[in-house]
């Protein structure tokens, strides 16, 4: 199996550089037209005026914040089960990007909420569960940082990541399960999107761009983690 070759840090290290380069280019390819459509092509909303344009950042960031958490928990679990170093390194590399996305979603949401709802923040189920997600990311990073031995840090943080995964469906379905101030999903797999097509196109392009950026930046980060953790193993210096 050729694929397994890349499951060792030694072989993944050069591959990650190539993946990062390709995905940074892709992020620009989707992001530039996405921003252009978002700012210049997409029409003004009939109710919110220009304030709605926050969705071109807010929605992709919120999607990524949840998705990255699931991927992070998946790799953490794989690392725990198969005892593979690289899996835990991937989980470790994803956490800061996930935290950044969560913060962006909360931050842009507050800026949108002030003119639209009339408040920066409310303790409704959607906003609160997203805040819990930020704490989970920060907790994961902090727990890792507090344990000296990286292999023990892998195990402890993996358990936190796996347990925290229950929060993701809570965030996603919170607007369905409870009365919340946050509106329901405009775009979902189960129904036609309730958005003008130009707005939707801009948002999807931005979402793709966020995906590509997250992959690229995680690859760069995993390279740094490999450099840190494998510095004594010898192969890096050759």
């Amino acid at each position, binding site marked *: 199996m050729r694929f397994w070759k890349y499951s060792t840090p030694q072989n993944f290290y050069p591959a990650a550089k190539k993946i990062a380069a390709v995905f940074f280019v892709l992020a620009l390819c989707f992001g530039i037209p996405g921003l252009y459509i978002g700012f210049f092509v997409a029409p003004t909303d*009939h109710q919110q005026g220009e304030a709605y344009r926050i969705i071109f950042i807010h929605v992709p960031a919120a999607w990524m914040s949840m998705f990255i958490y699931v991927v992070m928990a998946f790799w953490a679990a794989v690392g725990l*089960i198969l005892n593979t170093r690289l899996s835990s390194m991937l989980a470790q590399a994803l956490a800061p990007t996930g935290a950044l996305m969560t913060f962006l979603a909360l931050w842009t949401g507050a800026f949108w909420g002030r003119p639209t709802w009339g408040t920066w923040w409310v303790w409704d189920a959607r906003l609160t569960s997203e805040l819990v997600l930020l704490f989970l990311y920060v907790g994961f990073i902090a727990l890792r940082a507090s344990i000296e031995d990286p292999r023990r840090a892998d195990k402890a943080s993996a358990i936190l990541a796996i347990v925290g995964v229950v929060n993701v469906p809570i965030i996603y379905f919170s607007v369905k399960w409870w009365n919340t101030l946050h509106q329901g999903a405009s775009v979902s797999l189960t129904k036609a999107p309730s958005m003008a097509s130009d707005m939707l196109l801009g948002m999807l392009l931005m979402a793709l761009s966020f995906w590509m950026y997250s992959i690229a930046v995680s690859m760069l980060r995993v390279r740094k983690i490999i450099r840190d953790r494998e510095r004594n193993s010898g192969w890096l210096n050759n």
Partner: protein
Amino acid sequence: MKPRQKRLLLIIAVLALVSLAALLVLKAFKSNLVFFYTPTEVVEGKVPVARAFRIGGMVVDGSLQRKQDGVSVSFSVTDTIHAIDVTYEGILPDLFQEGKGVVAQGRLSENGSFIADQVLAKHDENYMPPEAAEALKRAREMKLSE
């Protein structure tokens, strides 16, 4: 069983137990997690009496009245079954509109109306340009007049 299979099973078991625990907690908290109550729940007396709570629904068309002093307003909130009169002193959010969603925080007065100390506009999930909204409105009016 190999150790790695054991670990996999253990993780699945932990995840299942945590999910179950979360489910039970959420079920227990269900009523407390409600961000707002509907006018029907208010009429049926399912709302807290002693403390402030929020009601949510649609602002009834034509119900918005501004008082002489310029800051007091009153309007009705409906869930299409029951309506509650709300009075409020303060600035309404930009998106506050008749026929649109609203969430008001405050308490019930003795005569059954709601005295709000905060009013938030609840946005819906529809995003469209003004022309599309106008076309939709016209189509609805056509339908009504038929």
